[in-house]
């Protein structure tokens, strides 16, 4: 896509019009353009008294002091070795060399599913998390949450002691109290004893739950996962009669249709999906073997952004579309109501059928069960079952009848709950508003809460137990495919915490109490001998523990199940109720209730009303990460906002209601209401309004408490994902959202280059076709003699999905501080690698592109030339190095950097107060003080480590021996780093690609970082339209 819309030829008139900010669609208004309008300036003057901002980062200072107070416990604790597992030092553990990091394999769970990771451990301090290359859900990469987990481990706000009614107590006291309680309820078979957990895949915990229910038949286990997969589970039940788990093989798909499914962010397998999907996106592959992705979604997602065709549709209309699709594929039999998107339907259907056995239809968890069922049937009809999509017995512990949160609340109301044990859940915050869980909780005589933080639920509990972090305990968990990883502790519990398994053991009064023993006993059969156990620990997974794939046939009567009600049924209320979260909807019996039925297309959305959609926040999910500063400050992948959630509305709705970014609106739904700032989101379905869960925490920590607004306040158990009948009222007030990107238009500058597959096939070098100097512009200066290595980096924009894992991995590796909302508003965020996002095309459904931008390591670096003190210079291997302790902070280098990748410590951002967070820091990387410029270094500390290793063995550094943090974490391997002087190196290969181009090459800065142009694979029949 040179030319990008306006193309090479620049139209001054148009530019003037746009730049004046007075014209052009409201959507493109960036903050500065807003500044043109007097009202905004007025407001800015009143609402943003600069003095207040100058006088300080109040939150940070608060954090600093409080952190210091809390530190003592942490600092003393982190020296302590685990009691019995880690071998005493005198025995010189294998591979331990003082000062050198060691890596241990373990697992982190997300929504209960295991992600295999390797944890870098510096002399007993876990400092960085990498993916485990051998783990199926990771393949060496991780998502942003795994990266942030290390900060969570060292979070000074974590709960540190047992609390009884808020007063500090001890485990012994709790054990004693628990004994009485269990004894009471034990007499009548555990009646009144209820256990509430999140999704459970841990074999140990599953066994414990079984044992518990065996010992206390009358006891109940409830499942509560705010972002649950109940709909898909129910869908599987409908389709197969059993809640089978599905497994996608995107690498085998040629055509993918996602019905509101953000499969690249799937909590269980997102990372794996990304890798598999990227594998099908290389246009170089013979025969242009590039897959085609269709996405229908209501609110922009990462998956939608990489789609070849994206159709924004209200959630309800997606149902209608699916129904029409199902009928076309012979899965439904009924007279159809017409849909407006028939062109799309035709194109998609023909494409799907043309790729029989190589296509895939996926459905999002926010869509109702019947759609999931229909999708299974359609995949079967398309011959994809067993090929692109496979089924296995459930990976997670399937909840039986009456195991939902709603039923728990009913039981409480009925007064039949005597003892409630909540393991690592926070329903007092994240339960749907209509359940009024907080009120219910107060009725329970005895409540026990295990959690990492003293949160909203802990406040209301009789007993709060500090939970040990995943990196502090023994545990086990299954990956999306059932592969088991034994989680081993990297450090003894910093505080007095225990794991869920240990608490369960306590609850049952089991003789074995220690986490290690519990897990070891669970696997005594499979990993009988010690070598097997050690091997499993070293590999980070238990060999062939994956759950076998089984054939699954769609029940023949599914058509009738999905048949619409003869008399127009109730309009679908929000795709599957939470009650299905427990997986115990009547569907399980097979009889189709109204809820499960395909809707007749009578959704309020399609009639001009507004629907409200609930989604997990892109960076803090359902709220469990809200106290994590890295994630709070990580720009949300599509909005680039930090520290806040917003009310996402479509440009057309904004125009209709005269709303502008940052305007506070009141949302009214079913008698409840909340206020939040508007963010106009290109590509949002016209009548859909999206709010993200996870903010508005009443009790989270110094970082998370009180940020944003609480979307749960409008969430109901009947419509957990969407509710119709939303009202929006403008309040006229404003709130300044803190975004890291102000301008989303490329202004016809070809910093990011895109073409279609057709372009690529006609001219593989389309990316540089318009460049004056396709490779190197001439220079007056002689080249410097080549050094031992020539480091370079290549970023494949075709693989990049814009997930921002690179940004946060870099933050973890390089001790990059967070600066807080006010400083981000000022444009002072510190991320060394940012992911830019550009829109192209019409605001209602633009193409969305992501571009990671680290330092370009220019050979003719403009920054170096202007530094008066030699604080940034070039080394012999082509690195543009920054010498922090020589920097006086003129900032000319940043002004002179055309890529604006340099970051400056305008204030003292790094907290030097003694604080557990200090223990997280990477000892290999200098911590920068105030007044110093910093930037991406290609992870020079890793390069140097490799140098030392190679020198010791008197050899060259091998290709792939040095992985930069961003490269290592990238789920799609879009980033390749290595030695350019070695023609066979991966990076040299990558740069040899026909799609290779450099950003702003005409400036003759000669960047060592370069890009591979993005290639879209549109369906010709749709591209016309």
């Amino acid at each position, binding site marked *: 896509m040179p030319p990008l819309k306006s193309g090479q030829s*620049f139209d*001054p008139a148009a*530019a*003037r019009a746009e*730049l*004046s*900010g007075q014209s052009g669609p409201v959507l493109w208004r960036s*903050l*500065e*353009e807003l*500044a*043109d309008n007097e009202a905004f300036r007025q407001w800015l003057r009143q609402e943003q008294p*600069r*003095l207040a*901002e*100058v006088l*300080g980062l109040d939150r940070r200072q608060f954090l600093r002091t409080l952190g210091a107070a809390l530190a003592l416990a942490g600092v003393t604790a982190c020296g302590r070795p685990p009691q019995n597992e880690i071998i005493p030092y005198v025995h010189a553990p294998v591979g331990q060399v003082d000062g050198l990091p060691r890596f241990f394999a373990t697992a982190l769970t997300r929504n209960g599913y295991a992600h295999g990771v390797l944890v870098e451990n510096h002399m007993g301090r876990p400092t960085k998390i990498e993916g485990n290359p051998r783990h199926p859900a990771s393949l060496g990469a991780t998502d942003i949450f795994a990266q942030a987990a290390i900060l969570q481990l060292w979070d000074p706000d974590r709960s540190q002691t047992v609390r009884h009614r808020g007063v500090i107590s001890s485990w012994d006291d709790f054990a004693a109290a628990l004994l009485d309680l269990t004894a009471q309820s034990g007499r009548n078979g555990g009646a009144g004893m209820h256990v509430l957990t999140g999704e459970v895949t841990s074999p140990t915990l599953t066994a414990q739950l079984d044992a518990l229910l065996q010992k206390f038949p009358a006891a109940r286990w409830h499942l509560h996962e705010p972002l649950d997969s109940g709909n898909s589970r129910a869908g599987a039940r409908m389709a197969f009669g059993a809640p089978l788990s599905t497994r996608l093989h995107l690498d085998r798909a040629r055509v993918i249709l996602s019905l509101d499914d953000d499969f690249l962010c799937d909590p269980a397998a997102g990372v794996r999906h990304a890798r598999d999907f990227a594998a099908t996106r290389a246009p170089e592959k013979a025969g242009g073997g590039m897959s085609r992705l269709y996405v229908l979604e209501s609110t922009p997602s990462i998956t939608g952004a990489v789609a070849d065709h994206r159709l924004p549709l209200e959630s309800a209309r997606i149902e209608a579309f699916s129904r029409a699709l199902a009928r076309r594929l012979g899965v439904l039999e009924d007279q159809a109501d017409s849909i407006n998107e028939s062109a799309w339907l035709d194109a998609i259907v023909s494409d799907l059928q043309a790729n029989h056995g190589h296509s895939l239809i996926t459905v999002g968890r926010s869509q109702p069960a019947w759609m999931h069922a229909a999708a299974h049937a359609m995949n079967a009809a398309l011959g994809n079952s067993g090929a692109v999509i496979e089924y296995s017995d459930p990976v997670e512990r399937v909840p039986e009848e009456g195991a939902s949160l709603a039923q728990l609340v009913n039981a409480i109301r009925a007064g039949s709950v005597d003892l409630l044990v909540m393991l690592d859940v926070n329903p007092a915050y994240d339960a749907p508003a209509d359940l009024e869980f907080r009120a219910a909780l107060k009725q329970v005589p005895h409540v026990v809460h295990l959690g990492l933080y003293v949160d909203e639920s802990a406040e209301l509990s009789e007993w709060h137990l500090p939970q040990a972090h995943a990196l502090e305990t023994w545990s086990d968990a299954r990956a999306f495919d059932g592969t088991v990883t034994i989680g081993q502790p990297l450090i003894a519990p910093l505080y007095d915490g225990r794991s869920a398994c240990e608490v369960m053991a306590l609850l049952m009064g089991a003789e074995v109490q220690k986490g290690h023993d519990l897990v070891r006993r669970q696997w005594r059969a499979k990993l009988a001998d010690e070598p097997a156990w050690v091997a499993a620990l070293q590999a980070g997974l238990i060999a062939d523990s994956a759950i076998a794939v089984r054939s699954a046939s769609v029940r023949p009567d599914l058509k009738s199940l999905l048949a619409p009600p003869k008399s127009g049924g109730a309009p679908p209320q929000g795709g599957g109720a939470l009650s299905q979260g427990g997986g115990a909807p009547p569907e399980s019996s097979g009889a189709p209730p109204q809820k499960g039925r395909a809707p007749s297309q009578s959704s309020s959305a399609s009639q001009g009303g507004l629907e409200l959609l609930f989604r997990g926040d892109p960076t803090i999910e359902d709220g469990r990460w809200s106290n994590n500063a890295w994630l709070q400050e990580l720009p949300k992948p599509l909005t680039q906002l930090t520290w806040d959630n917003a009310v996402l509305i479509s440009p057309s709705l904004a125009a209709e209601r005269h709303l502008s970014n940052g305007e506070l609106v009141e949302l009214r739904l079913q008698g409840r209401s909340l206020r939040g700032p508007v963010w106009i989101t290109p590509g949002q379905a016209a009548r859909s309004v999206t709010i993200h869960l996870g903010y508005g925490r009443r009790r989270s920590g110094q970082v998370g408490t009180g940020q944003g607004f609480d979307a749960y306040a409008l969430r109901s158990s009947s419509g957990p994902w969407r509710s119709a009948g939303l009202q929006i009222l403008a309040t006229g007030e404003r709130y300044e959202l803190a975004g890291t*990107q*102000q*301008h989303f238009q490329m*202004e*016809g500058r070809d*910093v990011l280059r895109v073409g279609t597959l057709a372009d690529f096939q006609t001219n593989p070098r389309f990316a540089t076709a318009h460049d004056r100097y396709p490779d190197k512009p001439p220079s007056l200066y002689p080249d410097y003699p080549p050094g031992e290595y020539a480091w370079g980096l290549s970023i494949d924009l075709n693989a990049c999905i814009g997930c921002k894992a690179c940004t946060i991995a870099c933050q973890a590796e390089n001790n990059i501080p967070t600066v807080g909302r006010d*400083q981000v508003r*000022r*444009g*002072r965020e510190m991320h060394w690698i*940012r992911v*830019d*996002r550009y829109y192209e095309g019409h605001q209602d459904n633009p193409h969305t592109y992501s571009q990671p931008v680290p330092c370009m390591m220019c050979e003719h670096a*403009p920054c170096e*030339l*202007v*530094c*008066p*003190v*030699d604080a940034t210079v070039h080394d012999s291997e082509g690195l543009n190095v920054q010498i922090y302790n*020589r*920097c*006086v*902070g*003129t*900032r*000319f280098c940043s*002004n*002179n950097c055309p*890529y*604006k990748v340099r970051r*400056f*410590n*305008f*204030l*003292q951002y790094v907290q030097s107060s003694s604080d557990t967070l200090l223990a997280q820091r990477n000892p290999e990387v200098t911590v920068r003080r*105030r*007044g*110093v*410029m910093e930037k991406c270094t290609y992870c020079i500390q890793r390069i140097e480590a490799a140098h030392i290793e190679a020198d010791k063995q008197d050899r060259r550094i091998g290709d792939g021996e040095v992985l930069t943090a961003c490269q290592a974490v990238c789920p799609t391997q879009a980033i390749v780093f290595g030695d350019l002087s070695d023609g066979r190196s991966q990076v040299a290969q990558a740069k040899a690609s026909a799609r290779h181009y450099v*950003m*702003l090459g005409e*400036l003759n800065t000669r960047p060592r970082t370069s890009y591979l142009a993005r290639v879209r694979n549109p369906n010709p029949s749709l591209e016309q339209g």
Partner: protein
Amino acid sequence: MSASLPSEGIEHAPTYAAVTQAICDIPLRRRFGQGWRAGFAVALLLALLLMFGIGWLLVRGVGIWGLNIPVAWAFAIADYVWWIAIGMGGTFISAALLLVRQEWRSSLNRYAETMTVFAVSVSGLFPILHLGRPWFFYWLFPYPDIMNVWPQWRSSLEWDFFAILAYLIVSILYWYIGMIPDFASLRDRAASRTRARVYGFLALGWRGEARHWQRFEKLSLILAGLAVPLVFSVHSMVALDFSEGLVPGWHSTIFPPFFVAGALFSGFAMVLALGIPMRRYLRLEAFITSRHLENMAKMMLATGLVVDYSYCSEIFTAFYSMDRYELAMTLNRMGGAYAWVFWGTILCNVLQIQLLWLARIRRSPAVLFIISVGVLIGMWLERFMLIVTSLYRDYVPSSWGMFYPTVWDIAFLAGSVGLFFVLFLTFVRVGPVISMFELRRAVCSPAEAAQREPQPS
């Protein structure tokens, strides 16, 4: 301005004694009343604000200003360029006019030089305070370092460092040397003993011996000869601080001459803005005559026109080159979020000075004063425009961002003005505001003048 009669510019030529007395009485006998006290009080308050600001800056860091990425330079640098430009005017007037033997200069050069010295001193604060770690500013100076590191000579900031250093020292010496004979006059007329001592100390025991005068004149002449190119070179360095960068709006080889023109422009404006009230307050109309003001006005107009030409050529270049980035930057300036700065500059530096074509305007001190203040404002706006509107939208649209000043940005600007006036008002109170020995020479009889009129030997 052609070579002119020696005594011109000074009405009804008085005697040596009268001249000397008139000037000496200002520091020695004159009562400084409300006007001066009030002005000094205000200036002092602002200066104190600056001091407090500096303290806070050292405690918290440059983050107290509105700086960010991409706009990593803003007010402080604008203030710096503004002040040092003002600092160019004085030396130029004094030196250039001496070289071309404009005798009438003798009424102006002293306070013009004074203005220069103080303006340069004030401007020198900003580059240092602007550093992320001000206490390491000396790293720009080449000294044997134990790490054996040196300054990076290719950076225009390094050049600028030397330029400011040289210019500050030279202008101070030039100013002081010129004052030695006048300090002698003050010494000999001081009533109180302490004053006599102080002035005597400053006069270094000057006696006005013929050979001394000879060396003195030689030095003054060569100093002037050096000062003029120095002015040009120094402000060219300041220009290079920007044109060495490749930021659209900065990367321009013709900056140096334009910057020099701008410097003289604002310099003359400041001389007028200071001179008009001063001559009125100190009753110096006899010495600083409307003729002086008119000449200054003419020079201001001339330099102003060069500046205006530079604006045109910049805009022309952008459109002529059709370079995407230059063009976008230019259009941004005219129509973007900071358009008001651009148009404000045009109003102050282009439109209003056209009034100076009218002799009536040039002869009206009040109007001249207003215009020259307008020019000073305009020149500050120009610097702000040059810096901020070039940075806030450069190459990669994703990194575009706004700059909003904080109270501290304002405080430092106001404070620097305050500091300048504290210094200047103090000098007016205690120093010889007009070069007496030159006045004496200027008022001596035509016969002697003819004698004295130096022929190029």
